[in-house]
């Protein structure tokens, strides 16, 4: 300590060139200048070459008519829409598969991760085998496994497998009845929102009461009653406005109903299974990372094993789990670009098609890079907020 303070207070003696601070600034300035020069050179080189090769450039092409169709679109899109809209369609598809994958991967990951620590030999071994298989296979192969190995060997539409509730499974995907909302059905979502709000309020009241008096309140069942019961009541009151559109056999395919295409299914299942193996290991590490004394102390207080896990172990494990979980979420989002191998119209696929139809490769790749970067930064930001809330608050 003492020597450092001496160094800091001692003004530089001798030559100006030998001053470490001046040298430091000099080298940093050199690096910045070099970086700026190389970036300028790259940009200038691209512009020069595009002009020399008579290749059109700029982002004006985004307003042009796309002319091609996209199989899966969450927003209105036809071949008359613009190239820009086609890219947005792909972007939304990427988000859909990433969010669905993240939710499922987290669920499977937690179950398998906790399962690996189970006292039951069979559960423990099954979970270990799961992790070792999926963690050691490249994600692209997992996608092909689901696409070519599982979904494409299903029967043709004519011989679809009948599932309960008028659903069908065939090589063109999974079909289930689509809900058709009639007049007055707006009441149902309103009731649902009111139900959730009330459930949240009840839970808060119950916690305050438990803090004050020690008496418990059946929060879970009350919440279920509110969240399920209120919309049901609204449904009955508004005169049963819900009907279903069932998938039916037609010349080529099943028509009507709602179709989940095999491209989406295989990508979603593959990303979920693959990432879940990593999440399972993170969860296991998190739980093992909680000192055994915590479990024993909780047991000594008379908590049951379930409560120990829920109230003592998991909250502490979460602190260890969340930071590496973030990078798994980012990996899953970025791996979704492997969709191109099986023809799911994600951002890479649609932007790639636009790139090829217009020939504007530099702009196309730039758009993709910026969008993926933004998506990853947003995911990181959300996870950082969660992490900050979970972190140990020292009093």
């Amino acid at each position: 300590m003492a020597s450092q303070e001496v160094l800091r207070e001692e003004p530089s003696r001798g030559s100006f060139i030998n001053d470490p601070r001046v040298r430091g600034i000099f080298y940093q300035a050199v690096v910045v200048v070099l970086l700026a020069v190389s970036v300028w050179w790259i940009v200038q080189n691209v512009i020069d070459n595009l002009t020399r090769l008579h290749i059109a450039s700029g982002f004006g092409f985004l307003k042009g008519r796309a002319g091609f169709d996209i199989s899966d679109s969450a927003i209105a899109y036809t071949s008359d829409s613009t190239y820009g809209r086609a890219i947005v369609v792909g972007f939304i598809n990427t988000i859909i598969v990433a969010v669905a994958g993240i939710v499922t991967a987290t669920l499977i990951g937690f179950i398998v991760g906790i399962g690996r620590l189970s006292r039951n030999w069979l559960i423990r071994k099954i979970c270990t085998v799961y992790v070792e298989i999926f963690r050691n296979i490249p994600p692209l192969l997992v996608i092909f496994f689901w696409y070519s190995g599982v979904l494409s060997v299903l029967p043709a539409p004519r011989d679809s497998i009948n599932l309960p509730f008028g659903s069908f499974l065939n090589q063109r995907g999974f079909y289930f009845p689509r809900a058709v909302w009639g007049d007055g059905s707006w009441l149902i979502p309103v009731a649902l929102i009111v139900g959730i709000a009330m459930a949240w309020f009840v839970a808060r009241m119950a916690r305050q009461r438990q803090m004050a008096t020690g008496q418990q309140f059946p929060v879970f069942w009350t919440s279920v009653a509110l969240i399920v019961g209120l919309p049901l009541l609204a449904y009955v009151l508004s005169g049963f406005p819900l009907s279903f559109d069932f998938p039916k056999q037609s010349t080529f395919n099943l028509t009507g109903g709602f179709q989940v295409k095999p491209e989406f299914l295989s990508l979603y299942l593959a990303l979920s299974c693959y990432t879940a193996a990593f999440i399972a290991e993170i969860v296991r590490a998190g739980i093992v990372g909680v000192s055994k004394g915590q479990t024993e102390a909780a047991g000594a207080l008379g908590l049951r094993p379930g409560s120990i896990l829920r109230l003592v172990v998991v909250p502490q494990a979460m602190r260890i789990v969340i930071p590496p979980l973030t990078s798994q979420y980012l990996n899953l989002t970025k791996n979704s670009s492997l969709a191109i191998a099986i023809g799911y119209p994600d951002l890479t696929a649609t932007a790639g098609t636009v790139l090829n139809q217009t020939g504007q490769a530099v702009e196309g790749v730039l758009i993709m890079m910026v969008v993926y970067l933004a998506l990853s930064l947003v995911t990181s930001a959300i996870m950082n907020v969660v992490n900050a809330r979970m972190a140990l608050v020292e009093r």
Partner: protein
Amino acid sequence: MKHIAIGILGAGALGLMASAASATTLDTVKAKGFIQCGVSTGLAGFSAPDDKGDWQGIDADFCRAVAAAVFGDGTKVKFTPLSAKERFTALQSGEVDILSRNTTWTINRDTALGLNFVGTTYYDGQGFMINAKKLPGVNSALQLSGAAVCVQSGTTTELNLADYFKANKMEYNPVVFEKLEEVNAAYDAGRCDVYTTDQSGLYGIRLTLGSPADHVVLPEIISKEPLGPAVRQGDDQWYHIVKWTYFALLDAEELGITKANVDEMKNSPSPEIKRVLGQEADTKIGTDLGVSNDWVVNIVKAVGNYGEMFDRNVGSGSPLKIARGINALWTKGGLQYAPPIR
């Protein structure tokens, strides 16, 4: 340390200067000793590797013809298989010298992509193929409403498909893949009902399916697909060499010069044949183009004339058995017509 920094700056400056100068395509090709030719990833009749790994097909042979014109040796070609999506970038960036990959000539590709198409080596049109066994009773593309259609992404095919179904007020479900093999596999597995691409391609693909006899190509042709080789813009000499190689193939057929008789034809009494084969005294036709004067002899020796190339790869001498149709010479009622070599 400062010396290192100066060294880096110096290297950067050198890099800047190096990028400024650029040689012509002919010089680069001659320097490396072969032509880099962009072909498809495997389309029977146009460009596909045979069981020995040699590329066969009209598009592959066209590159051999250019190599014969430049080097006098049709084997001085290296092939780069390209997906539909990669092809234009590969040509623009200089990775390939010619793009000879069943590519449709359109105005957008000529003007906005920095390419120059040299001509139409194959007049094609887009068609549909279905599995007649699974879909009996379908005998027209107008009955395809509601079908799932397999198509390769980033092609004119994809755009024509959208236009055709829209114009006829029909619905369809696009199943889009980037690579030809993926589209073939999906169609063969039954992921889609209909396969659409250029009709010649459909005939070629049909041969590779599990049971070719079950599949029929529907009669409708929904678009014009003039397929031809393309080169980069801004190098007129190279453009002329490739363009006139194509014309030489046609002129050779028109004059009856074949692989078998090309050496005898050199002594032909016809002044036109003598001129084309570079036997005229003090001729400058070849050297003005930037190649040797016996370039047409070399081309025909390497791949034959256009008719021979067609028959061997897609016509009567091939498993595809496609009729000459509109690809016949203009003298025989087709569209293939070349300006005179004089």
